[in-house]
């Protein structure tokens, strides 16, 4: 049985503005971050070189923005069942996301577009639970496959 999608998977034709998405929890380790950097061929030293990032006034290594952005995509994907695909993502990292902290990804349905084959957009936030502050805000688009 597929365990990717949430048990109460949403359907594009039946959602309402304000409806909540499945919550995700993430706690990326340095190994996770290094693996992701390799996968996207991004070797910015802020993500794995402790001494380098401290020279720039930041305490410890930070999670790549593309990873927190992908968490937002994942939250929307998991909330809706099979038969949907991501159509857009707009995200901004508003605070640094330290490696090893605990993050919660939450979101709601923001807009319905009945004219565009039932496509929707969702507002998603990545919150650093350890520091009690948001680190990434995003808008994710979804459409019927």
């Amino acid at each position, binding site marked *: 049985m*597929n365990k*990717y999608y949430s048990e109460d998977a949403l359907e594009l034709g039946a959602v309402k503005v304000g409806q909540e998405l499945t919550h995700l929890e*993430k706690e990326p380790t340095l190994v*996770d971050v290094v*693996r*992701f950097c*390799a*996968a*996207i*061929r*991004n*070797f*910015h*030293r*802020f993500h794995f*070189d402790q001494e*380098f990032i401290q020279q720039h*006034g930041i305490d410890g290594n930070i999670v*790549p*923005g*593309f*990873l927190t*952005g*992908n968490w937002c*995509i*994942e939250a929307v*994907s*998991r909330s809706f069942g*099979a038969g949907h*695909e*991501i*159509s*857009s*993502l*707009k*995200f*901004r*990292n508003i605070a640094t996301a330290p490696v090893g902290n605990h993050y919660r990804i939450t979101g709601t349905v923001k807009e319905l577009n009945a004219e565009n084959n039932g496509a929707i957009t969702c507002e998603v936030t990545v919150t650093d639970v350890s520091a009690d502050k948001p680190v990434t805000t995003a808008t994710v*688009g979804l459409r019927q*496959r």
Partner: protein
Amino acid sequence: MSLLTPEIMTWVGRSQEFKSDPISLSDARGFVASSGDDNPLYALPELGHSEDCDAYVSPMIYYAVTRPFVSSKDFAEDGTVMELRPLIGTGQTMGGSVSMEWLEPLKLGDQLHGKRTLASLNEKEGRKRTFVIAEWLTEYWDNDGNLKVRERYEQILF
């Protein structure tokens, strides 16, 4: 003194074209494994994808497969690839906001042809330093000429 010299400003409006290798099963596996987003829609047999999903891959993989392979001397001090961007301040960079639109899903075997244009450079005063926001607009097509991805990226240069 402004970071934006007249020479640097001549970069605005310039475009670069590039081509990726075909998106491989290894690319797809690497992204899924490292991101944790094991969506069965993505074309990996171990995710149990169905045959009718036509070899979809993670949307964000377009970024990975279009990154250039360069020698160590072509990296800036911060570990980023110098590529074709104006040298501003110390030459370092951080990511700003990004927006992407996938007009069609990405699939295994897609070979992306990209065209990136520097749309603007704007200098800002931050709390700690002066920096520049570079706005890059990029479009990606597959080998059949289908426009697959549009991206707007604000890069912070300092």
